[in-house]
């Protein structure tokens, strides 16, 4: 069905203008109430529900023809799903793409926040499978909506307490809940805890889209975002200490853990591939420049 250029068959950015305007209104609503989940009439897309349709709808609604786009999945610009999403957006908008975080106006991501800090003129769109941090407390939307309204977050604290009591730590995985602007408890989407602090008092705008669950929420720039933690067990990120990227030598970033097929040894690689690539390019350039005079 996809022809070379779908821009002639479909509206700019696929969705009709009315839908995009409606989604932008929901975004404004979300920015106005940081961390609050705004319900919206999620549209069907040519990409599967659960495959980033919330993020795509946000990107489609805010993107303009002059924007530069970066799409990552698990930190990777070249993962199949990132490519597939990038392709759909490019086909229907004709925008330029980049892998360089700093050159992008809009970055759509699944499960990661890039290593390089984002600026005020950048938007990070995160794909969210389950926007409701209280879903494990109660499966019913009607109940959790009331809990948010009442600011009643006992259930989520009980779950953290349970993890501490029975498994030794309240910090056991990704999507660790955060308190936004002192009011709403929010799921940061399944980013590792390593990325949670990047949400706090950031320069950029964070938008979160859940297509299947039909929710939009936001963390505006310069907003307090605190990861939930007990007074006597301060928040702890994944332990990445002592690791080093095999490709670019970076330390103090989030790593993918890989196993060398031949030696069976575990080695590490930057999870943020764009960052890793850029570092390697810089290293190469530096080397060339360093060698330059010798050749001359």
């Amino acid at each position, binding site marked *: 069905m996809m022809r070379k250029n779908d821009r002639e068959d479909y509206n700019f950015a696929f969705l009709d203008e009315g839908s995009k305007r409606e989604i932008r209104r929901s975004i404004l609503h979300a920015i106005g109430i940081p961390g609050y989940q705004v319900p919206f009439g999620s549209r069907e897309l040519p990409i599967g529900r659960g495959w980033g349709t919330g993020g795509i709808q946000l990107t489609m609604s805010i993107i303009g023809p002059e924007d530069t786009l970066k799409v990552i999945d698990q930190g990777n610009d070249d993962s199949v799903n990132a490519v597939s999403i990038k392709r759909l957006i490019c086909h229907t908008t004709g925008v330029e793409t980049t892998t360089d975080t700093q050159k992008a106006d809009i970055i759509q991501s699944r499960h990661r926040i890039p290593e390089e800090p984002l600026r005020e003129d950048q938007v990070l769109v995160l794909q969210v499978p389950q926007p409701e941090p209280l879903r494990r407390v109660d499966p019913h939307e009607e109940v959790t909506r*009331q809990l948010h*309204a*009442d*600011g*009643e977050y*006992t259930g989520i*604290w*009980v*779950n953290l*307490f*349970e993890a*501490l*009591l*029975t498994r030794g730590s*309240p910090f056991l995985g990704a999507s660790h809940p955060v308190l936004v602007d002192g009011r709403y408890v929010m799921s940061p989407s399944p980013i590792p805890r390593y990325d949670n602090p990047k949400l706090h008092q950031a320069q950029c705008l964070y938008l979160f889209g859940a297509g299947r669950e039909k929710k939009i929420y936001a963390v505006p720039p310069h907003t307090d975002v605190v990861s939930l933690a*007990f*007074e*006597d*067990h301060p928040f702890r990120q994944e332990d990445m200490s002592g690791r080093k990227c095999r490709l670019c030598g970076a330390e103090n970033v989030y790593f993918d853990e890989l196993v060398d097929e031949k030696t069976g040894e575990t080695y590490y690689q930057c999870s943020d591939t764009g960052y890793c690539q850029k570092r390697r390019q810089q290293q190469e350039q530096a080397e060339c420049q360093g060698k330059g005079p010798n050749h001359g």
Partner: protein
Amino acid sequence: MDNRTPVLEGNHITVRFGEGCDYCRSHPEIERGRCPKCHTIWAVRDVSFQLFPGEILGIVGESGSGKSTLLRALYFDRPATSGEAHISLYHQGKTNILQASSQQKRYLRNHLMGMVYQNPMLGLRMGLSSGANVAEKLIAAGNRNAGEMIGRSQQLLRHVEIPVERMKEAPAVFSGGMQQRVQISKATANNPPILFLDEVTTGLDLSVQAKVLDLIRSIQKELGIAMMVVSHDLAVIRMMADRTMVMLGGRVVEEGLTDQILEDPIHEYTQTLVSSLL
């Protein structure tokens, strides 16, 4: 605390399922509280009571008499159709808690009330450890210090004779009597002034029943919590309650000191109850 001021007071509380019709509105004594014309159920009808600090008020009646529904309405598990209830420690008793906002109701439940249900599934999260179940009440009341809460949970569970090493186990694997004991420690975790107990020993073996009842009485003596105890079993009421209300078809048909009711029942229904006990 002034012992003359009731800690909890209910006035003309009604819980109704259905809209009601001219007939049942004008006939308060319809059988079993069910209107033969419009099928409306008057689960609780025009019930008033006072609960004084440190006392145990018993509510006895057959199944469907409305006693549990009354408790559930007071604990906000289901809305009351009309009537008022006041807690002396909350806004000096000036607020009708049955009409309070959802946030206020949560505050009241988290800070001033406890509930022990007949079915432990309602009072406990069966998938979580007993320790977390007890801590829930502390978290709800605002505690965010995990170490402190672990200590307090251990202390509470030990008090109801649950070995500390079983604190990490879920109540789902416990016996019925143990589940009730976990519920009791949870409900009393932050020393609430009011505790509701709904048929807490129904379904337990007689020996276990006695143990649970003893435990409740010792906690009551120690903490001075005012309790409302609902049971269909007059023997339980006789053992526990200072004063007793007898409910039938959603209404209170008799009330007074428990001894007095047992010795000199006035209402026909109470007489049947008492004679069956003897």
